[in-house]
């Protein structure tokens, strides 16, 4: 590892952060347009973040409350940095030499755990309820995801993401989604859960448990969480792109592909109403699980 890698990493973070924020705005805009509204401005997320940082006062419930956003953002950034973002690029390969797919899968939990701890520290019962729901849901969609990952790793005989991407080069017929459709479907369904959009958004459930885990977060703390909300989904999109859709050799391809992938949860979310936790848990452990098992059997 050389120090220039740090610089490259900062560059990646910067690009992905902006991309994530814009993506957020654009997607919400699209959602509004579908609902025949004009919708927010595409740069609204920027304003929101600035506004939150511009808050003058902050309260804190304790050390963990304070550290939670740090955990969360570290988790998001780490996830991003442990993946090769652009295939074949030294600059945007980031720290993917530190670990493989397993690291990436497990590093997702870093942020989740930290956030959960902070939310709990706030002492707000609704935060805790949100965490309970969130963790329950995470456990259930991880199973098809894991099965899909195993299937893919076996398909390519490696856990190295770069190599997985490399194996998919040369046209869309080499993409995993074509070559290993069951694994891909299982993972894509799990992806719905991972993105936390409707119908699997009971974790946040605005108004019911105000907004779940981050209920007590405000001002700068919320700003950090918002940064993560930009980076983390983008990172996940990149991961799925790398695993299922042949990765990206340049930023344009990356933006196009991830945008299209993002449409999948958006569409589903627009169409389906919310599941209760027990429903979603049961659902994840039936249909996607069976698909995942089929994927495994078909290896």
């Amino acid at each position, binding site marked *: 590892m050389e120090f220039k890698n740090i610089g490259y990493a900062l560059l990646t973070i910067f690009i992905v952060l902006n991309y994530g924020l814009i993506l957020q705005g654009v997607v919400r805009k699209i959602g*509004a347009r579908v*609902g*025949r*509204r*004009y*919708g*927010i*401005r595409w740069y*609204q997320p920027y*304003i*929101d973040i*600035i*506004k939150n940082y*511009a*808050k*003058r*006062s*902050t*309260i804190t419930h304790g050390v963990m409350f304070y550290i939670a956003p740090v955990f969360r953002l570290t988790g998001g950034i780490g996830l991003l940095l442990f993946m090769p973002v652009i295939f074949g690029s030294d600059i945007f390969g980031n720290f993917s030499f530190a670990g493989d797919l397993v690291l990436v899968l497990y590093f997702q939990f870093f942020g989740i755990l930290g956030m959960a701890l902070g939310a709990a520290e706030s002492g707000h019962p609704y935060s805790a309820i949100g965490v309970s729901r969130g963790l329950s849901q995470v456990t259930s969609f991880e199973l098809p995801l894991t099965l899909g990952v195993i299937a893919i790793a076996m398909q390519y005989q490696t856990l190295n993401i770069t190599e997985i991407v490399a194996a998919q080069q040369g046209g869309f017929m080499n993409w995993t989604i074509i070559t290993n459709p069951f694994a891909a479907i299982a993972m894509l369904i799990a992806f719905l859960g991972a993105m936390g959009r409707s119908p699997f958004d009971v974790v946040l459930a*605005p*108004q019911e448990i*105000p*907004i779940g885990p*981050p*209920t*007590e*977060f*405000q*001002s700068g703390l*919320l700003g950090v969480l918002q940064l993560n909300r930009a980076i983390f989904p983008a990172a996940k999109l990149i991961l799925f792109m790398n695993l299922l859709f042949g990765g990206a050799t340049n930023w344009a391809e990356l933006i196009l592909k991830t945008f299209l992938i993002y449409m999948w949860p958006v569409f589903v979310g627009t169409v389906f109403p919310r599941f209760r936790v027990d429903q979603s848990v049961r659902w994840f452990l039936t249909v996607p699980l069976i698909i995942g098992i089929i994927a495994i059997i078909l290896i």
Partner: protein
Amino acid sequence: MKEDFKKRTVISPEGKPIEIDPLKDYFSDAKPKVYKPAHPIIEKFANWARANSLWVLGFGTGCGAIEMRPLMTPRFDAYRYGIQWRPTPRQASVFVVSGYLSVKTLKRVVRTYEQMQNPKFVIALGSCTINGGMYWDSYNTINRLDHYMPVDVYIAGCMPRPESLLAGFDKLKTIITEGRGEGANTYAEKFDWYKANQKKVIKDWDMPDYNW
């Protein structure tokens, strides 16, 4: 006072009695602070952001609340102005008090207001918040909201239409952009006065002076 907030004695695991004064032990009783605006250039930029990102906490106790919902619909679509709804006072910056306030509700309104972070803005919706409206002589409602907390924008009417609401938000934006939205600081500066007013009407005062 609610039974739960009275002083009580519990026995610690070691068997020692512990005096609990819930109001002191469970609630912070720090006074609110006045926050100086930052350097004008930064402040100006910040105010622009604040004005364009109005996160609303709707306090729908009165009939006026019904007029807020249409703002989210395609017809009025308040989102395009950067207005969004937030379910928790911690994250909201605009407090919309809609309609008459009974004494009992006032207590909640004050508490909620105090839980919002500086800077924060208040929109009072409907005639009742201005002068009591049709409840002006009621034994149990307050007549003027701005005796109890600084109000940035009043929207008159009974009921005010969603359009008026939008106009009110627009007005608020202007106020913020011009740097006049210092209600939170005003509240802190004139804290004693506001508290005295509040305590005058709220007879069973059973909370700390400032609800963090």
